[in-house]
């Protein structure tokens, strides 16, 4: 009887609410070592231990106790100049505190799980619909409000709210996607290979002549036959093309130009081609580079009605289209789509002086989209000053295109798989006149069913089975077939009613939410978590069938599947989505390089694109080759193309394709910290701040959280060149209360001061001042440089532990040996991203175990394997 009572009491005490745990604040340890500063009188650091409750349900109280643990554990408290406890005095205090904190969180986890119920985010929803409906071209993410983020990721339940806006968008986005799938099934135009000659594109030939709105030869196009000018064609005295009558000559006719698109993917578009239907197409361009002599003529127009204008005198800085010679350069060409939801970059190649055919491979196009080749190195004219920066004494580089060839739409067994998922073998046809159907852009269609009642249930059952990522219930089938039937009664046709039913499924909580249950995840939930982690989408049939067989929870199977997912092209979505948030790469366009300080970067799409690709390719390579965590800050190679190599001062890299390049020994590049993408997202286009960059590196790369600053006067950026940001900061850092944090977070930012807003190396700051002569030269926009080189950059600093560095190379050396810190941070970021919950106090041990198992190199893929195998990942 007595023993039973004791057992009861124990059981009871472990179930006590956390705040009833032993009051640490009044213990002997705190009295002896803490209260002299942290009592109600001194409240040193704002902490009064005599008034601090132990109420862990209060998130800020929990944070406070964790901070106390961390400071005591690290030996920072009590401070060195005060009475220090002996190790055997600290130990019991620490142990009790750890146990209480762990107990609290573990109980909570048992009850609710680490992760909070969450919905799919916009990326995941878009990918899910693409994969389910075999419609990789779908663009629907931007229809949703931007997802909230917590702990820096868009995968956390706390921040993934739902509102009536989302409900409206789920319905409209799903309905849009379903209609597009019907359109693909309905149209199925035959696959053709068609050459779209440049001379047949009105958008290109209409620029042969100048007009009141475009009086600059720099923005003109011109006809050319191999290396021979065609002034009479240009002046429209001769026909635009010899036409089909003379195929040999026609094949050589080209249209040339000397500038880049005014707006990305706008000016030099092929208007004669529009993708007849969403799908896969193979695209080739035929063209070559040229050299155009100087002495072109611009015309002056009296007014908007004046169509002819008067020629001005020839000018040396303008291209003369009568003086054409063979190209002297290779020119990088980027291919964008046009007329779709947004312009997308779909390919790139190098145009050479010898005419050649360039196959950019297969691309996905939306219905109605066309393509635009952009000579990305060329001038992008902007008012009020029009000068081609590439124009030399004897001329300027030019490109010329003969034709674009499109083969497609290309079909395979996936093309209509989306339709088959919806309607199986039922035929689709144009709805008879006066009969209801589903309205597509150019036709009203209907699915023909001879036995609607039978088909409704059969199709809905199959659809639910595939879409719900776990066996659907009879209740679900009943629920959605009832909706279809109700809509039929309301007067909708079979096809419309079915689409309403499918739309409802795609907006339903079992689809939109993850619905994980507390405790160990079952096979189905694990399949979803794994595919959301590594594909940013829903599980495929292989994962689902392994789940159905109860196999996925076996460690070996889980490992194999992790490898399969990582080796699949869809893992590219993980790379993009993870870096978009971990490294803020989604913000790459948030700032524009200042046109007065940095018009050499302004409008340089090719540079920005290469910068993002570098980071993505580098991370993908880390995963592929299981590269050590230290590569995050220091690698002897990176991915470059000619433009980026030029930016980084790396010699001998030619062409537009990014490839792995071994870096020169003294290069500061290699690793994310010194990549142009990271250096751009941590600047504002005009100035850099060591504080902001330092904080960013501490948090994103090294894994330390920096508390937000107290409200103090901000440092006012000054670009006049008389004072540097460091000189301005020194005053601020001299204040001891500021220094305690700034000493920790600024040093990496000091090292990165050697890099400008686009990540270019600098020894001196650029400034703009009326009394200083600007540097000679012109930017990509044709405007004269407005900046001068001012004060020298000071990139030296001292780490909190006293070690000094003089520049970024030095700083990187100091990070050698920090492999574990880097790995811990990467693991932390991946756990947060992959499980939808941050690494909490009680998860620390699990993260240490992950690290332990990935020793000594902490390879990126090894870390992912260890994470997937861990309890953190395999439990809610």
């Amino acid at each position, binding site marked *: 009887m007595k023993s039973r009572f004791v057992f009861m009491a124990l059981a009871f005490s472990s179930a006590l609410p956390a705040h009833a745990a032993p009051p640490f604040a009044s213990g002997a340890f705190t009295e002896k070592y803490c209260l002299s500063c942290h009592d109600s009188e001194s409240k040193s650091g704002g902490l009064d231990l005599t008034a601090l409750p132990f109420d862990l349900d209060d998130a800020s109280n929990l944070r406070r106790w964790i901070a106390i643990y961390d400071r005591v554990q690290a030996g920072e408290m009590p401070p060195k100049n005060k009475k220090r406890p002996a190790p055997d005095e600290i130990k019991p205090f620490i142990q009790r505190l750890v146990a209480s904190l762990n107990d609290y969180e573990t109980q909570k986890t048992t009850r609710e799980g680490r992760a909070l119920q969450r919905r799919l985010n916009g990326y995941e929803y878009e990918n899910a619909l693409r994969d389910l409906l075999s419609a990789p071209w779908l663009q629907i993410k931007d229809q949703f409000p931007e997802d909230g983020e917590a702990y820096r990721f868009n995968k956390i339940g706390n921040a993934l709210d739902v509102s009536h806006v989302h409900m409206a968008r789920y319905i409209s986005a799903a309905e849009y996607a379903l209609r597009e799938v019907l359109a693909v099934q309905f149209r199925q135009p035959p696959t053709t290979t068609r050459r779209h000659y440049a001379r047949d594109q009105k958008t290109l030939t209409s620029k042969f002549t100048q007009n009141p709105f475009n009086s600059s030869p720099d923005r003109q196009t011109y006809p050319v036959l191999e290396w021979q000018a065609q002034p009479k064609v240009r002046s429209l005295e001769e026909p635009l093309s010899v036409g089909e009558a003379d195929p040999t000559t026609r094949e050589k006719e080209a249209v040339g130009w000397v500038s880049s698109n005014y707006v990305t993917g706008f000016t030099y578009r092929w208007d004669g081609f529009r993708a007849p239907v969403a799908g896969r197409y193979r695209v080739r361009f035929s063209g070559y580079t040229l050299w155009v002599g100087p002495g072109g003529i611009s015309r002056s127009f009296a007014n908007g009605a004046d169509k002819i204008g008067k020629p001005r005198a020839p000018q040396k800085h303008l291209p003369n289209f009568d003086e054409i010679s063979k190209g002297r350069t290779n020119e990088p060409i980027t291919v964008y789509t046009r007329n779709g939801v947004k312009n997308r970059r779909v390919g790139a190649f190098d145009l050479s002086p010898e005419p050649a055919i360039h196959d950019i491979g297969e691309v996905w196009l939306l219905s109605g989209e066309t393509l635009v080749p952009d000579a990305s190195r060329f001038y992008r004219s902007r008012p009020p000053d029009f000068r081609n920066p590439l124009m030399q004494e004897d001329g300027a580089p030019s490109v010329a295109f003969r034709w674009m060839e499109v083969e497609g739409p290309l079909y395979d067994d996936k093309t209509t798989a989306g339709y088959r998922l919806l309607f199986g073998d039922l035929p689709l046809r144009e709805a008879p006149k006066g009969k209801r159907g589903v309205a597509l852009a150019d036709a009203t269609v209907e699915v023909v069913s001879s036995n609607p009642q039978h088909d409704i249930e059969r199709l809905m059952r199959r659809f639910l089975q595939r879409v719900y990522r776990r066996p659907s219930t009879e209740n679900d089938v009943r*629920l959605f077939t009832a909706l279809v039937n109700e809509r039929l009664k309301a007067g909708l046709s079979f096809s419309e009613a079915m689409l309403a039913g499918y739309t409802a499924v795609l907006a339903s909580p079992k689809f939109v939410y993850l619905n994980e249950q507390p405790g160990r995840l079952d096979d189905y939930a694990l399949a979803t978590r794994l595919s959301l982690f590594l594909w940013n989408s829903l599980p495929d049939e292989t994962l689902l069938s392994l789940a159905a067989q109860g196999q996925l929870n076996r460690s070996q199977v889980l490992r194999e599947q992790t490898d399969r997912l990582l080796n699949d092209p869809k893992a590219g979505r993980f790379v993009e989505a993870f870096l978009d948030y971990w490294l803020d790469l989604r913000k790459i366009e948030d700032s524009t390089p200042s046109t007065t300080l940095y018009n050499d970067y302004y409008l340089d799409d090719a540079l920005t694109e290469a910068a993002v690709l570098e980071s993505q390719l580098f991370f993908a390579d880390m995963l592929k080759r299981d590269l050590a965590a230290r590569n995050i800050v220091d690698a002897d190679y990176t991915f470059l193309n000619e433009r980026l190599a030029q930016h980084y001062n790396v010699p001998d890299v030619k062409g537009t394709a990014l490839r792995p390049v071994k870096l020169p020994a003294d290069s500061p590049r290699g690793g994310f910290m010194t990549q142009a993408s990271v250096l751009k997202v941590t600047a504002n286009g005009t100035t850099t701040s060591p504080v902001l960059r330092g904080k960013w590196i501490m948090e994103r790369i090294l894994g330390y959280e920096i508390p937000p600053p107290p409200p103090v006067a901000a440092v006012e950026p000054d*670009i006049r060149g008389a004072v540097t940001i460091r000189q301005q900061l020194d005053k601020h850092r001299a204040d001891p209360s500021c220094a305690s944090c700034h000493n920790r977070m600024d040093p990496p930012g000091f090292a990165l001061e050697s890099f400008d807003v686009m990540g270019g190396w600098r020894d001196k700051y650029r400034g*703009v001042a009326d009394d200083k002569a600007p540097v000679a030269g012109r930017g990509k926009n044709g405007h004269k440089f407005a900046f001068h080189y001012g004060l020298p950059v000071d990139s030296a600093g001292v780490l909190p532990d006293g070690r000094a560095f003089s520049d970024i190379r030095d700083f990187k050396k100091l990070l050698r040996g920090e492999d574990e810190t880097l790995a811990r941070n990467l693991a932390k970021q991946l756990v947060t991203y992959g499980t939808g919950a941050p690494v909490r106090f009680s998860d620390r041990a699990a993260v240490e175990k992950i690290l332990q198992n990935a020793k000594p190199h902490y390879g990126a893929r090894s870390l992912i394997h260890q994470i997937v195998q861990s309890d953190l990942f395999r439990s809610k």
Partner: protein
Amino acid sequence: MESSRFHGPFVHVREPISRRRFLRGAGIALSLPFLEAMLPRVARAAEATTGKPRRMIGICNNLGLLPDLFFPKNAGRDYALSPYLEMLKEHRRDFTVFSGVSHPNVDGGHPADVCFLTAAPHPGSSSFRNTISLDQFIAEQIGILTRFPSLTLGVNTRTRSLSWTGTGVAIPPEDKAAEVFKQLFLQGTQSQIEAQIQKLDTGRSILDTVAEQAKELQRDVGKRDRERLDQYFSSVRDLEGRLKASRGWEQKPKPVVKVPVPVDPATPAAFMDKIKVIYDLAKLAIETDSTRAITIMLEGVSAPVLEIEGVKITDGYHNLSHHGKSENKRAQLKAIDELHMKLLADLLAALKATREGEESLLDRTMVLYGSNFGDANTHVTTNMPTILAGGGFKHGQHLAFDKMSNYPLPNLFVSMLQRMGIERDKFASSTGTMRGLEMA
């Protein structure tokens, strides 16, 4: 007479402004996405639904204005107009300018623009969560009175929004004036209306179905997970209410206006032209009582080099705002700022010139103009430049507060709510009503 003016409980239809004429076959289709601006559940504020119509327009210029040229030097009713306010001279008696005001704890630089009408703290922090905006709060109370409970507009943005739901979700702004115009004024054909009604009904059936599943799921989950599902459930009910209300409006003819469909300037560089088009549209929406709460985000952050007739601009708008004390940049910024003030003056003049009953539209429309930035160059979000014009207050003064320790701007929102006839004594971090601002 009464019966022709009141078509149903709480639904007040204005006198026709001109002979009714239906623009038939204009080829419009109301799409579901636009419905998010549609009706709320119930109208609660009895007074607000019966008194004379009161409206608000909230405008945020998210790059701010040069503070030294905006703020007047002295306070009170006899204050001397600052260089920028000089441009609003003709409206001096119709607006109040505020200084030394800001949203408490709203920091973080650029991200703070989305808090302009919400005052939710720490928008730059990684766990930031926005709260309901002033216009959406108003729409919840009186939105049922108009075809659109609110209009969320943007210039050069379809993402950065001033309007936020109670669950902290942005209502994406509409930035194409022509499209909004069609939604507001172009009458569909009978068959289009019927198709639209059927579409709304299908939407409601879909919502009923998913709500039933949500109820089932809610049964077996823990407390915190259930709260997330509750949010889904109430979102469904919210949209259902809106679909129901818009079904009612679908059967009523739209107001007729005599102006042509606006033409949206094609390029983001025509930022200032776009602002004018959007202001004109806002005025038209107010004039036809299509809505009583409008927000307009002037998104300068991502704007390219602006093209302004007669002004030589060489640098991107955003970069100009980081002028770094460069005189050249400041001069260009000043030209842009002045144009902002002129466009605002034109909007106020247009509202003033339109009569509604005994008063001008301006007398019944609160126009709140300001910025999240006190100074874009330093990215500070204190000392927000703020103007409130019209709407039925005793204006003509400069209410100056402490520049070092700011007065809470949310107090102005409380004053505005009360002026709307909504009984409310708190909004976000307010501490009362705006000190020194009295109703006319």
